[in-house]
C-alpha cells in the first residue's frame, strides 16, 4: 500500500508542474534544433563571386558510406573571365537524400567548405525517389541554411573564390 501511495504522490506532484510537452506540427511550439544539428546535407553558395563553393572534386562521393552521391565537374566560365579563383566548378550534383544516413562524413572530408549539414529534416515526399536532390535544390537548402545561421566558411582565405589580383600586389 505504501509503495502504491508514494507512486501516486509523485504523479500528484507532477500535476503542479509546467508541462514539458512540445507540440510538433505547430512551428512556434516545437523544440528548436541545436546549432550543431545535422539535417540533410546541402551545398553552400559563395556570395562574393555568386557561384557554389563546390568544385566537384569527388572526395565526398568517394567517402560516403552509402554511396548516395554523384558529382560531375566542368571548367569554370567565371575563371576564364577572371572573376573567380576556382578553375573547376560543379556541373551536376545529386544526393539521394532518401538514402543519406546523415552521418556527416561528407562535410568532414570536404576541403572546400562546400557542403554543410543543413537544419532541414522534414522532406517527406509522395514518391519513392522524390528525394533525389539535384544541384539547384541542394543549393537552395544551403542558401536557406546560410541565411538562417549566418554561416561562415571555416577556412575563408583558402576557400574564398575572390580572385587574387596580382597587379595590385605589385
Amino acid at each position, binding site marked *: 500500500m505504501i509503495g502504491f501511495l508514494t507512486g501516486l504522490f509523485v504523479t500528484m506532484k507532477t500535476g503542479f508542474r509546467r508541462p514539458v510537452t512540445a507540440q510538433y506540427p505547430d512551428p512556434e511550439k516545437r523544440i528548436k534544433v541545436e546549432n550543431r544539428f545535422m539535417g540533410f546535407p546541402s551545398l553552400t553558395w559563395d556570395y562574393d563571386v555568386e557561384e557554389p563553393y563546390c568544385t566537384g572534386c569527388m572526395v565526398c562521393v568517394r567517402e560516403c558510406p552509402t*554511396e548516395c552521391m554523384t558529382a560531375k565537374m566542368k571548367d569554370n566560365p567565371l575563371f576564364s573571365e577572371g572573376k573567380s579563383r576556382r578553375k573547376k566548378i560543379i556541373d551536376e550534383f545529386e544526393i*539521394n537524400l532518401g538514402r543519406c544516413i546523415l552521418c556527416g562524413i561528407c562535410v568532414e572530408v570536404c576541403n572546400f567548405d562546400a557542403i554543410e549539414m543543413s537544419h532541414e529534416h522534414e522532406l517527406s515526399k509522395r514518391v*519513392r*525517389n522524390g528525394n533525389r536532390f539535384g544541384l539547384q535544390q541542394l543549393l537552395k537548402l544551403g542558401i536557406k541554411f546560410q541565411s538562417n545561421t549566418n554561416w561562415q566558411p571555416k577556412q575563408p582565405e583558402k576557400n574564398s573564390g575572390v580572385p587574387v589580383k596580382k597587379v595590385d600586389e605589385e
Partner: protein
Amino acid sequence: MENQKTNNKESKEDSDILVSTPEQDELISLLTKRFPSVPDININHLQEDIELIIESKNIKSTCRLLKDSSELNFNYLECISLVDYEEKLEAVYHLTSFKLKQSLVIKTSISVENPEIDSVIDIWRAADWFEREAHDLFGVTFLGHPNLEPLLLFEGFEGYPGRKNFPINDYKEW
C-alpha cells in the same frame, strides 16, 4: 596463411613486444600441464588473450577438459566466430574463466569442402544460437546440435552470405 601466421608470431617474439603478465604465465603452465595427452596442441599468445590452436576433431574433448577441470574452469563461452580465409574456414571460440579471471581463444580450422565440426552445445548451452548463426551464414554443420534450423535467414535461403565468395548485391538507384 599458416606460414604468415607463424612468421608473425616469430617476429613479435623477436621484438619483445609481447610481455605476458604473471597471470598469463600461470595459465600457460596450467594449460601445458593439462594438455600433455591431447596431440597437436599449440599454445600461442597473440595480442592479449592466450591462443590455443587445435585440430577440429579435438574440439569437444578440449572444451570438455577446459570446462570441467577444477583449476581452469572455463565456464563462460563468450562467442563463436567463423572467419572465411577462402582456402579454409576458421572457428574461433572465446572463453572466459570466472575463477581465473582469464580469457582464452581456441582456434580450429574447418575445411571448406566438408565443413563439419562437433557441436559444443552440451558443454555450454550458450553455444546454441552462435552455432545456428554460423550454420546459417557459413554453412558449417555442427554435429550433435539438436536443431540447426535457420536462425537469422529465412527458410530456404540459398547460399552462405557470410562467406567471402557470396556477392554483395550492388544497389540500383530507383
